[in-house]
C-alpha cells in the first residue's frame, strides 16, 4: 500500500514532463513556421529576375508593367520591419498579377514554354507563401489552445508560455483583386 502515493507522484512527474515538452515543441513549431514564410518569400525574390528576363523581349510595349515588378521586388527586399515588409510584399503580389494579366494578351508569349514554366513556378511560389502563412496560423492556434486548455494551462502559466498572435492580412488587402494567376 505504501507504493500508492509513490505511483501517483511518479504519474504526476511523467505528465508534467510530457506536458512541458509538448508546449516547448509547439512553441518551436510556431517559430519555425514563421521562418518558413520568409524562406518562401526569399524564393519569390529569386524567381522574379528570371521571369522578367524571359518576358521582356516580347513585351516592348509593356515596359511600364515590367518596371513596376522590378521596383516592387527591390522595395520588398529592402523593406525593414514586419509591417513595412507586408506592405511591400502586397505591392509585389499585385504587380505580378498585373504582369500575368498582360501576358494573357500576347499569344506568342503564352505559348512560350519558358513562360509557362515560370508561370507555374510563380503560381507555386504564391501558393507556398499562403500555405506557409496558413500553417503558421494553424500552429499558433494549436499552441494557443494548449496554453489555454486545462490542465496544460497550469504549466504554461508556471513557465511563462505566452500566447502568440496570428498572421493577419491588412484591412486594405482583404479586397482581393480579380486577376487570376492560373
Amino acid at each position, binding site marked *: 500500500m505504501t507504493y500508492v502515493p509513490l505511483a501517483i507522484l511518479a504519474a504526476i512527474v511523467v505528465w508534467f514532463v510530457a506536458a512541458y515538452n509538448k508546449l516547448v515543441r509547439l512553441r518551436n513549431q510556431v517559430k519555425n513556421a514563421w521562418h*518558413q514564410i520568409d524562406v518562401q518569400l526569399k524564393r519569390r525574390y529569386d524567381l522574379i529576375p528570371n521571369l522578367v528576363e524571359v518576358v521582356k523581349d516580347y513585351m516592348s510595349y509593356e515596359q511600364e508593367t515590367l518596371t513596376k515588378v522590378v521596383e516592387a521586388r527591390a522595395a520588398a527586399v529592402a523593406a525593414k520591419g514586419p509591417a513595412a515588409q507586408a506592405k511591400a510584399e502586397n505591392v509585389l503580389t499585385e504587380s505580378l498579377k498585373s504582369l500575368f494579366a498582360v501576358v494573357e494578351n500576347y499569344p506568342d508569349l503564352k505559348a512560350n514554354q519558358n513562360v509557362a514554366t515560370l508561370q507555374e513556378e510563380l503560381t*507555386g511560389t504564391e*501558393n507556398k507563401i499562403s500555405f*506557409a502563412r496558413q*500553417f503558421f496560423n494553424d500552429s499558433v492556434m494549436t499552441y494557443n489552445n494548449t496554453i489555454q486548455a486545462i490542465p496544460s494551462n497550469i504549466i504554461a502559466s508556471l513557465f511563462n508560455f505566452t500566447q502568440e498572435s496570428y498572421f493577419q492580412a491588412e484591412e486594405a488587402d482583404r*479586397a*482581393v483583386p*480579380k486577376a487570376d494567376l*492560373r
Partner: protein
Amino acid sequence: MTVPGRACPKCGAGNPAAAEHCYLCQEPLGGAQAPDGVQALAGSVGTTPGAAPAAALRTAPMLLFTDAIRHNIRLSALLFGLLLALFLLLGAVIGEAYGDLGRGLGLAAVLYAILAGTAYFSGSSIVLSLHDAKEADPGRHRQLLNVVEEMRIAAGLPAPRVYVMPSDGMNAFAAGRNPREAGIAVTQGLLDRLDREELQGVVAHELAHIKGRDTLYYICAAVLVGAIALLADMFLRGTWFGYGRRARPSGVSREGGGRGNAAYVVLGIALALLAPLAAKILQMSISRQREYHADAAAAGFTRNPLGLASALEKIAAGGSRVPGENRGTQHLFIVNPLKEFRADASALMSTHPPTELRIRRLRAMAGFAEL
C-alpha cells in the same frame, strides 16, 4: 462534372458558379444582395433553386472540416480499441478454457509481437516496386512537385519522395510508416486529366494519410486481424498445450494439461468461430474511417474541399485501375483500384467508402449539397 468555379470578390475563395454566397466568408456573389451570417444560409436554402441556370448545388449548413477530423479520429480510435479488445478477449477466453488466463493472454501477446515485427520491417519499398513507380522528374513533373511542396508546407511535414506510375488509370497512393521516410505516388493518367486544384486535393489527401500515420494504423489493424484468425484457428484445431492429443470432450477434465472450464471451452469455440469475421469487419471500417479522415484533413490543408470533390468525381468517371494492383495494396490508394464504388458499395467489407458519399461530405465542408 466539374463545378465551374468563381472566385469570391472578398476573400478569393473558389466557389461553384451557382453559389449565391461565398462558402468561406458568406459574401454574396454576383451582386445578389442577401442578409449576413446564418440568416444568409437559411434564406438561400429556402429560395427557389430554379432561379440559377446551371444550379447543380445548393448552399447547405457547412460541415466544419475541424469537426469532421475530430469525429473521424475519435471513431477510428474507438474501432481500433474494439478490435484490440476482441483480440484480448479471445486470448483470455482461450486461456481460461485451459484453466490459465495468463498463458492465454501471454500467447496472444507473443503472437502479436512476432506478426507485428514481421509486418513492420517488411516495409513500404515493396509497394512502390509493385506498381512500377518511378521517381518524379523535376523537369517533366514540375507542377506535381510544386503541388506536393505546397501541400507539405500546409501540412507541416518533411518533404516526401514523389513517384509517378506510368499507368493511364487515375489513382494515387501514399506509403511509409512515418513522415520522415514517406513517399507518395500518382499515376500519369491522373496528372494528365486533373487540373491544378484537383491535383492539390489528391496530394493533400495522400499527405493526410502520411500525417495520420495511416500505414502504421493499417499494419496494426491487419496484424490484429491476422493474430485473431491464427489464435482462433489454433484453438479450434486444438494444437497447443498438448490439448490436441486428447479427444475434445474429455479435454475439459481436471487431469493433465486440460484443467479448464467447460463453459469457457464452449464460449471459446463460439468466439473462435465469430471473431475472425468480426475482426475483418472492424478492420474494414477502420480503413473507411481513415479515408474519411484523410478527406477531411485534405480539406483542412487546401481549404478547398471542392478541389478534391471534383477530382474524386473525375476519378470515378475516368477509371481508377492501376496495373499491378492487388488485394494486398488496395487500401493504400485514394480510390480503391479493384472495385468500382457506387452508392450500394457501402458493404461491410470494402476498404473505401463509396466515392459518392465522400464527394457529398466534401461538398458539405464547402457548404453545399446536391439538389
